């Protein structure tokens, strides 16, 4: 009897082991989840290889990668080369996305927000829409003397991290006081939190005189009006694919530093400023599996461009994917 049980156990282990080997397992960041999901589907159709990516959040993804519970992990927050080395991980960018300033001002279109205005909206020092800080850059518009409601994410998210990172980059006081975080105790008493992107989108849409940050894909899907944002060169840039691509091309992602960089507020006259790259982590000790993961991303960089664009993400420019290939080759995981 015990023999039978043992055999049954052993064979079931074997079967489950085999099944697990067939699937490339990943977990982590929720920001790029929609585009990874579509890539996975398309990749499976093209090659028959199964990839499984669970959207758990960047922190849990990092934890999973450190604990070797997954074959790859997604994170919106890059890890420094020091941390990567300590935990035996490789890192490279997956896709670039953009965060927009969505607003709800009845009768107002083509709103322009300066860098200072965005910071003061976020920290609560701008209370009314006709505040000089906003009005000065919108001379032709009739802004109402109405209280401004700032909508943010209630849950911890990579979107919040990338937005607060941008704020930290353009404003020193913000950087000192609040920094870049995945969930923040927002200052002021002019703000409300929406649960997930859905919550933020519907609160911006339903609350008159609201403004909030939301990723481009969700803003577009929900028909939210988006503001033009002042970039580093002082130009007001409309959130659109062209401007995101210009930003991605200027991104300073260096393979020597494991691409460790947040690309917010890039240089370039036509770059949209609030952009974010999201990253992939790979455990070092299993090059055979890493090769499978890089093959998937290689395929996606090449064939997934239209998918990414349709979801409001920016496919990585050729110059960057070339760098990633060199990185993979150097690490022996291509």
């Amino acid at each position, binding site marked *: 009897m015990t023999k039978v049980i043992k055999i049954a156990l052993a064979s079931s282990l074997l079967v489950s082991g085999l099944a697990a080997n067939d699937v490339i397992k990943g977990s982590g960041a929720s920001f790029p989840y929609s585009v990874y999901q579509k890539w996975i589907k398309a990749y499976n159709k093209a090659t028959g290889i199964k990839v499984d990516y669970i959207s758990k959040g960047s922190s849990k993804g990092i934890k999973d990668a450190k604990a070797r519970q997954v074959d790859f992990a997604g994170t919106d927050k890059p890890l420094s080369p020091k941390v990567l080395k300590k935990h035996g991980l490789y890192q490279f960018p997956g896709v670039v996305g953009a965060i927009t300033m969505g607003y709800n001002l009845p009768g107002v279109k083509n709103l322009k927000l300066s860098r200072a205005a965005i910071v003061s909206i976020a920290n609560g020092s701008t209370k009314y829409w006709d505040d000089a800080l906003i009005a000065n850059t919108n001379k032709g518009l009739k802004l109402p003397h109405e209280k401004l409601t700032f909508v943010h994410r209630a849950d911890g998210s990579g979107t919040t991290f990338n937005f607060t990172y941008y704020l930290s980059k353009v404003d020193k006081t913000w950087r000192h006081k609040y920094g870049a975080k995945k969930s923040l105790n927002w200052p002021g008493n002019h703000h409300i939190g929406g649960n997930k992107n859905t919550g933020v989108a519907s609160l911006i849409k*339903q609350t008159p005189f609201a403004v909030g940050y939301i990723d481009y894909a969700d803003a577009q899907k929900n028909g939210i009006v988006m503001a033009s944002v002042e970039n580093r060169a002082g130009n007001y840039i409309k959130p659109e694919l062209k401007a995101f691509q210009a930003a991605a091309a200027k991104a300073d992602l260096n393979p020597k530093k494991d691409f460790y960089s947040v690309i917010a507020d890039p240089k370039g006259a036509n770059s949209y400023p609030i952009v974010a790259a999201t990253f992939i982590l790979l455990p070092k000790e299993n090059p055979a599996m890493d090769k499978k993961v890089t093959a998937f991303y290689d395929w996606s960089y090449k064939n997934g461009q239209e998918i990414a664009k349709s979801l409001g993400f920016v496919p990585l420019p050729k110059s960057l994917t070339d760098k990633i290939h060199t990185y993979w080759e150097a690490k022996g995981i291509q």
Partner: protein
Amino acid sequence: MEKLFQKISLSSATLVLVLLLGIFTTLFISAKPAVEAFGLQFITDQRWNQEIPLIESSDTVIEDSDDAIIADEDDEDMILDEDDEEDAATKTVFGGLVPIIGTLLSTLIALLFAMPIAMGIAVFLAEIASKNISKFVGMAIELLAAIPSIIFGMWGLYYFAPLIADTFGGYQVSLLTAGLVLGVMILPFMAAVTRDSMNTTPDVLKESAYALGATKFEVVKDIIFPYSKTGIIGSIILALGRALGETMAVAFLIGAVYSLPDKITDPTISIPVAMAVNFGEASGLGESALFYLGLILFVMSFAVISFAKFYFLKRGNA
């Protein structure tokens, strides 16, 4: 057979105790780092996830980082590594006062809103309505109880929140919105259990009262309510338990802002919501502070329910 039966029922009963104890222990172990870091002050501290410079080295730290900015505008090390806390120059403080108050207030609003309506429904169904209507409305109420809470959340966000903002002013997502939707959610529980316990009133009692010339209102007030008091309080306790712990619907509606509300239409946060929305991205001390909140909710529900039970039910029996 008799013995086996006894043993099975005994083990089912102990299982509950073991589970309860097990949950409490795991909660406590996970919460321990936060308990040690903040102690009981956690309960009265308003600050959630706020960074304060470490006291002993605060001067040097600030100077250092100032220099760094002047020296290098594009310093990439500003990426604060929350997942790598060893070289943090600041300490993050977590305090639970806001979520605790938010939980209590939203539950209170829900109870105040739901209780009179539930009593009305129950009296109507048990005493006033005809059999057919009573059956039909009763079914509708049970269906309402079966609606998953996420649906209440979405409905509340898309349709109820704008309505509240139009009627009462203030923000769409607020303590009031969350409390009222919570009220709608616990309403069917209260109404159904109250109706059932009212139905247990012996007809003889009611008939004798009517025979003495009592009106319908007097019968309800003096016969049915006193008789079914225990059941009614039981229904309120059940509803209270659900309201305290409700997560998904409230997460969409309370606004998730870590500040005490000045007005009833201000956004705030409750314990289950704080746990649900932050858990995905929490790590280190933040994660264990969430467990600490969970522990407090556990103790709080336990205390509130046992207080209600002992206090009211004892008096009800006397």
